[in-house]
């Protein structure tokens, strides 16, 4: 694509309109904030963070947690796809091994003995959620993960499951099928 | 006071000058350039002691501020490595040092034996005004000549640094 550049007129060659516009825009915002006390934070979520919790919009990619299914069983089947796909190698799964404990639900061969996510490494890209065939791991809305030590920031299976909670609404493949359907009619006609 | 300052400035100027040409710690041209800058600054101090304020300021402005920055710029641009320690050509070095020392000795002897100049009691104030008047009246022709030298140098540099176009 070739951008046509219009020849500048005399005033534009002296940067005068640019100066004027620049001052007008900055002054507008400056005045608004200083004299009327209106800030972008007020307008979007009603205030500043620690006092006013931040409103998390749908589609936000927060911390990835493991979820349980409607009957309270672990959904993860230790296929290790997420471990494989994780770009910063934040996920580490210990499979049960040949003589390990059996899965605690039907329709599953095995489940992870240990499932760790290092939240210091995680980049919240969402590839694990996308790749998971069992829809066992979801990026949720947590955005402030804090801890005092590095060890503390490695979340183990119990913690991830506890934080993930029960997702009764999530049915296997249902959401992906919906998405695919939505794609077909994507630019909404009309 | 003035003699103490003279001693300090002279010692530092000579020390930095020595570090410029024969730095025992580093052969990098950057170190040389920086010590040369320091030499210039100390020399400017000596000029101030001689009441040549204008020359002192110009010394800092032109030498330290422009010429040496140009040097640094070129050194950085060429990304020079440190000078390797060479196998000393003993005869060459000895001859060089000898000639320098001989020259210095002759000069020093001449200076020490000379009769003090006529106005050994200095009164002159290096006023910028008088200097300007002199430049533009008595020395007008050389002044214009120097400006032409600058112009020629400018054109020459542009020609030299232009890449050959095919």
């Amino acid at each position: 694509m070739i951008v046509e550049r219009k020849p500048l007129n005399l005033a534009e060659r002296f940067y005068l309109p640019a100066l004027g516009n620049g001052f007008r825009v900055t002054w507008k915002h400056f005045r608004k904030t200083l004299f009327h006390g209106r800030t972008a934070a007020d307008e979007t979520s009603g205030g500043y963070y620690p006092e006013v919790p931040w409103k998390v919009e749908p589609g936000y990619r927060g911390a990835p947690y493991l979820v349980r299914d409607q009957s309270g069983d672990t959904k993860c089947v230790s296929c290790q796809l997420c471990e494989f796909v994780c770009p910063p190698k934040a996920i580490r799964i210990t499979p049960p091994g040949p003589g390990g404990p059996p899965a605690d639900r039907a329709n599953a061969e095995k489940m992870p003995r240990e499932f760790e996510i290092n939240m210091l490494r995680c980049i919240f890209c969402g590839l694990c959620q996308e790749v998971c065939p069992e829809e066992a791991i979801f990026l949720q809305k947590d955005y402030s993960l804090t801890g005092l030590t590095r060890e503390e920031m490695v979340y183990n299976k119990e913690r991830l499951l506890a934080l993930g909670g029960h997702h009764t609404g999530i049915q296997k493949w249902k959401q992906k099928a919906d998405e695919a359907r939505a794609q077909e009619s994507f630019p909404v006609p009309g | 006071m003035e003699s103490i300052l003279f001693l300090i400035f002279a010692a530092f100027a000579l020390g930095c000058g020595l570090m410029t040409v024969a730095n025992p710690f580093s052969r990098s041209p950057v170190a040389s350039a920086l010590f040369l800058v320091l030499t210039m600054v100390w020399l400017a101090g000596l000029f101030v002691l001689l009441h040549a304020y204008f020359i002192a300021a110009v010394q800092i402005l032109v030498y330290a501020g422009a010429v040496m920055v140009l040097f640094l710029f070129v050194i950085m641009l060429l990304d020079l490595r440190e000078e390797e320690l060479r196998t000393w050509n003993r005869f060459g070095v000895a001859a060089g040092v000898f000639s320098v020392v001989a020259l210095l000795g002759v000069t020093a002897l001449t200076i020490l034996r000379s009769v003090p100049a006529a106005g050994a009691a200095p009164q002159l104030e290096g006023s910028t005004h008088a200097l300007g008047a002199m430049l533009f009246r008595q020395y007008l022709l050389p002044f214009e000549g120097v400006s032409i030298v600058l112009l020629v140098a400018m054109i020459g540099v542009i020609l030299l640094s232009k890449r050959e176009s095919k």
Partner: protein
Amino acid sequence: MDWQFLAFSLVKIIAAFAVVMTMVAYSVLVERKVSAFIQDRLGPNRTQPFFAKYIPGLGPLLTRWGVFQPIADGLKAFLKEDFTPAHVRKVYFWLAPAIAMVPSLLTVAVIPFGSMMGAQKMVIADLDVGILYTFGIVSLGVYGIVLAGYAANSKYPFLGGIRSTAQMISYEISMGLSVIPIFLLVGSLNLGDVVQHQTGGWFAWHIFRQPLGFFIFLIAAFAETNRLPFDLPEADQELVGGYHTEYSSIKFALFFMAEYAAMIAVSGMMVTLFFGGWTLPFLGLDQPAATLGMGLLHILVFLGKVCCFLLLIIWVRWMLPRFRYDQLMDLGWRRFIPLALLNIVVTAGVLALLASK
């Protein structure tokens, strides 16, 4: 060399240093506040020492204005880990921040920041070649940046160093040429005489006699202090911070402070050269002070004017986008130098005509 002179000089140096450093700290705060307001934010409004909340009314107010923020910033700069990367050239790496800081502080020495206090002239060094001294010192300012770029021994700082060398040398020329008409008018290089020449009515200020000169000086000042729209040596988006990419802790803080000190120095120069220094053309404020109170008032007037310019420089940073490098060079060499030369010729011609009448 009498001891009284030395003692008064020392007092003046310490006072000027203290004032400049305080102004540096608080201009950082102003910059943060102004930028925040322009970007619909509030800026620093939380930092407070433990006792601030017990002062009724004033404490929370000061906290909201961020008055304690510079202190916290300074503490943070000192306490952070001072990291020296393995690949740097160590001597230059440690030298560069100090060298960057010195010239801007030295420039302040010749600026007359007030008229008289008692029998003392309110200028640290009343030099006859004041302006030449200033330009000499300002031209040394480039060393800090060049050395930082060279010492870091990695590509972004290096590019920043190269850029800043070319930029500062180029704009020094137009800066120097732009003030020559002033000295044609005044007939002296002493900055005290320049201020004295601007007394008597608003239109005695050189801004009204040399608007073109002021304009060029202002733009060149932006370029010399590496402020937007000419902050190519730093250029966060292109050079990830340029010459101070590899620096941390107090060394980084020194570069940061050097930039603001340079802003203050250059504002002081502009006020002295074009805006009448410590004078105000009413209430008899343009005559050297006879009383201590008047002397203090003159210093306040000078500081007030400097603050106006600081605000201008800060504001412009958020107003204009960065120039491209070739545009910068084009502006410096092909626009400003001819314009400044023309300004000199016209001024000299007019002065010669007036003198011949």
